[in-house]
């Protein structure tokens, strides 16, 4: 909660006294209807997959689906999802605890720095890693005279490491949000009751932050499932990489079949998570505004903790930025250049389209988040879960689906910004639904009842009570969508309006042509602009330190 809300909150607290149970009326049904409509709209483009897969004969389809190579890819993908999620939790949760609950020095600086890896696109991060640690990489060259050899960065371990390092901030941020809204007095109380910090943490804190952690872990899991750049650069075969290979071979039928199989994996993960999640309680604390004043003293562990933070920041920020910088200083392949000069317009275009995507996604997320937070019905849960489908599917699949639908049924929308923004909404909806939903859960339903009792219309109650309380959740969702849109490549490349160049399409253009040096400036601009919005995101966590 930010400070401005405290006034509202105080007024609302008084209303709470007067409250009776919330009234349910037609407006709830309207919201539910809108939510269903949105969910159906964002999923429907993927029906195209079945159209394309149907072109493959049933026998051939079966042989593709059970081919040993397909099974390998299935196992690889599941293993990568599991390992990346595990690594992200292993990094994100301790770092969140350190920066919220402990007396780590410079907590604010660390918080910003530890969130920033999220803004480095994985295709650049992985590339920087290979440039640094790969065979003949910068560090390998530096260390080889000393007789130090670096283990190979390629394959499963490399893909896990790079993906984990660049996406753990999802877990870090959602866990932080939970910790911040957690009433630390409970932890202190537990500690006074003769529990050590560790035991108090396990018994008091962990159950409260589990839903936040899970939300972040889901975003990580499906990011790992749908990412193309990292597995491709790390030479690791996953569904997404094989789907790309099929598209490059014009095997659209096979690509569609594999995509449907990937959707099945998605459904399985969502199902498993919903079984696990049931135990986790319903929210990010009970609407109590927590503080991030430290409650645990690190003592002797201060130095190791600092070293841990520094190591993560070093790997995820210092190395990529140093590599980009090195590209910037070096001349590229010696051939005439032209037609590809960097323009600041590209950065403006990126920000412009990302702002629309962020606003559009939050607007689409709000009804779904509202319904799923307010109702325990299966339909409501299904609604929320369905938003993950567009997120888990590789960008190229969604983009080609929208090419087919756009060019043939909505030609007036095709290759326009609205259709591109729609693609972003489909891709990134769950990022906004997650944070919005958790903030809706925090709003005490009795408050709305109180407002209604005092004569507010449903809309008035929403505007005056709910909206101010959930604003931080909305802004956090918007910022996440903004960041991921800034770095989104496949859909942008396929669906952008002709002549509309963004930072990532420009980076793609110069990398394709082999001018790595020219990718450095836009890459640094991308990271810098995204970092600014990340700072905005973190401000929303509350300035009450």
């Amino acid at each position: 909660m930010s400070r401005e809300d405290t006034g509202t909150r105080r007024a609302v607290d008084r209303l709470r006294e007067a409250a009776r149970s919330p009234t349910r009326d037609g407006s709830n049904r309207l919201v539910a209807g809108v939510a269903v409509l949105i969910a159906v709209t964002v999923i429907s483009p993927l029906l195209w997959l079945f159209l394309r897969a149907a072109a493959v004969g049933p026998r051939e389809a079966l042989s593709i689906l059970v081919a040993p190579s397909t099974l390998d890819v299935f196992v690889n993908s599941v293993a990568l999802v599991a390992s990346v999620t595990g690594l992200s939790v292993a990094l994100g949760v301790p770092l969140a605890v350190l920066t919220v609950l402990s007396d780590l020095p410079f907590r604010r600086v660390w918080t910003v720095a530890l969130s920033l890896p999220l803004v480095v696109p994985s295709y650049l991060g992985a590339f920087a890693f290979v440039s640094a640690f790969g065979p003949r990489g910068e560090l390998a060259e530096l260390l080889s005279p000393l007789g130090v050899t670096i283990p190979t960065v390629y394959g499963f371990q490399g893909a896990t490491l790079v993906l984990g390092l660049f996406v753990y901030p999802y877990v870090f941020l959602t866990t932080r949000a939970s910790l911040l809204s957690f009433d630390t007095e409970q932890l202190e109380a537990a500690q006074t009751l003769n529990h050590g910090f560790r035991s108090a943490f396990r018994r008091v804190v962990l159950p409260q932050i589990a839903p936040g952690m899970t939300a972040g872990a889901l975003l990580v899991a499906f990011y790992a499932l749908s990412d193309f750049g990292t597995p491709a650069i790390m030479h690791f075969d996953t569904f997404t990489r094989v789907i790309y290979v099929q598209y490059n071979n014009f095997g659209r039928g096979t690509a569609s079949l594999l995509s449907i199989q990937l959707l099945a994996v998605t459904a399985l993960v969502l199902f498993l998570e919903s079984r696990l999640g049931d135990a986790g309680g319903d929210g990010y604390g009970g609407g109590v505004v927590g503080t991030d004043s430290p409650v645990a003293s690190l003592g002797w562990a201060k130095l190791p903790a600092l070293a841990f933070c520094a190591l993560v920041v070093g790997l995820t920020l210092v190395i990529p930025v140093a590599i980009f910088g090195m590209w910037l200083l070096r001349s590229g392949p010696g051939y005439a250049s032209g037609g590809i000069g960097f323009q600041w317009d590209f950065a403006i275009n990126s920000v412009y389209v990302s702002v629309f995507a962020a606003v559009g996604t939050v607007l689409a997320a709000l009804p779904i988040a509202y319904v799923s937070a307010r109702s325990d019905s299966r339909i409501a849960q299904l609604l929320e879960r369905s938003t993950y489908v567009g997120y888990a599917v590789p960008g190229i699949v969604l983009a080609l689906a929208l090419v087919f639908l756009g060019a043939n049924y909505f030609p007036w929308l095709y290759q326009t910004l609205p259709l591109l923004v729609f693609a972003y909404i489909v891709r990134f909806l769950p990022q906004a639904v997650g944070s919005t939903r958790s903030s809706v859960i925090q709003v005490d339903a009795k408050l709305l009842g109180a407002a209604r009792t005092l004569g507010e219309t449903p809309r008035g109650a929403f505007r005056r009570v709910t909206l101010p309380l959930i604003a931080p959740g909305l802004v956090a969702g918007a910022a996440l969508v903004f960041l991921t849109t800034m770095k989104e490549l496949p859909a942008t490349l396929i669906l952008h309006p002709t002549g509309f160049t963004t930072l990532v399409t420009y980076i793609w253009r110069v990398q394709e042509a082999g001018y790595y040096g020219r990718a450095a400036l836009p890459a640094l601009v991308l990271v810098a602009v995204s970092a600014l919005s990340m700072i905005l995101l973190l401000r929303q966590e509350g300035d009450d330190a």
Partner: protein
Amino acid sequence: MEDDTSSSLRRRRFLATGAAAAVGALAGCNGLPGGSGGGSGGSGSSGDGGGTLSLSSFRGSGPLVENRASLSGTRIADLPDLSGELTIYLGGGEGGLYRDLLAMFSQIYPDFTARPREGGTAQLANTIIEEGENTPADVFWAVDAGSLGAVDEAGMTVDLSGDVVESVPEEFHPTGRWVGTAGRARSVPYNTNALSAADIPDTVMDFPETDGLVESMGWGPTYGAFQAFVTAMRLIEGESATREWLQGMLDGGVTEYPDEFLTSNAVADGEINAGFANHYYALRVRSARSNAPLDLAFTSGDAGALINIAGAAVVQGTDQSELAQNFVRHLLTVEAQEFFATRTFAYPMIPGVPPVGGLPTIDELNPPSIDLQELANVEPTLQLMRDVGVL
């Protein structure tokens, strides 16, 4: 890149082959090699008033481009004006440079507007196929034959008129519905301090058994062009011979590089004696470092001599068919071919424009007879390379 190489002393030796020396001083370098076609170069000035651009405006610069021979073929001035707006799907690597050429066309023809739309070649081909008859594309201009072939097979191309393709060798317009605009040849860059041309086998399959190359070769197996080369080998020699070849190279201690520019650069530095790379990378190295002890050898009639192309097609469903055909014709003019030859160091497609850097002409090379469209099937190649442990 220069920094890490400056420590090498060996590269100081002067390179006598190739480049300027070989082409001789036929025409001087004033960029107006008189002769055929008349007209276009004459008025010279590259002022902004539209109209004409001299041939030298299309020509690149640098040591490799000096002393160009006189060129022949259709010139821009011989063709009807380009007028109107064209949406061009521009696939792949040379995107930036191709944009420069489009800008030059617009400078010559103020009424001509090109709307380039970039993307991966295969992605754009898939896009055109999904769009079907409603595609906004008028022209598909892509850097690989496989993508052109896929669009062609989907029935999304129209017949190019005879006078558009007639100047290009037949193997580069096999169906008549797309035509090569520039070529790139597989080659063997070698260090002239360590090896002579005679040390390089004429047959790519002999490389693993060649004593002089053991522990001194480099390649870039993650690079698309290298995989296309292995695909060609698989198609020509069969799977098991290809597997043996890859294994033989591995056993011979081949060094891996991230791409073929760096492979060529390492050859110039003497880190390795020879490598496998597209021909233009060695030219890029030499263009930046004209003294580099680097030359190119070509194998004959096998995968090692593969020539792949960038090419263009007029897209089915365009309402600008006439303009689109005329545009493709412009890509095959002396000026455009000189642009590709001297700025991207590609192989020109018309016989009247020689390649730069003393390269053998396309007729002198002996590429394998292989359907370029089949090169798109790279998946079994990747599988094979992974089995052997190359990837």
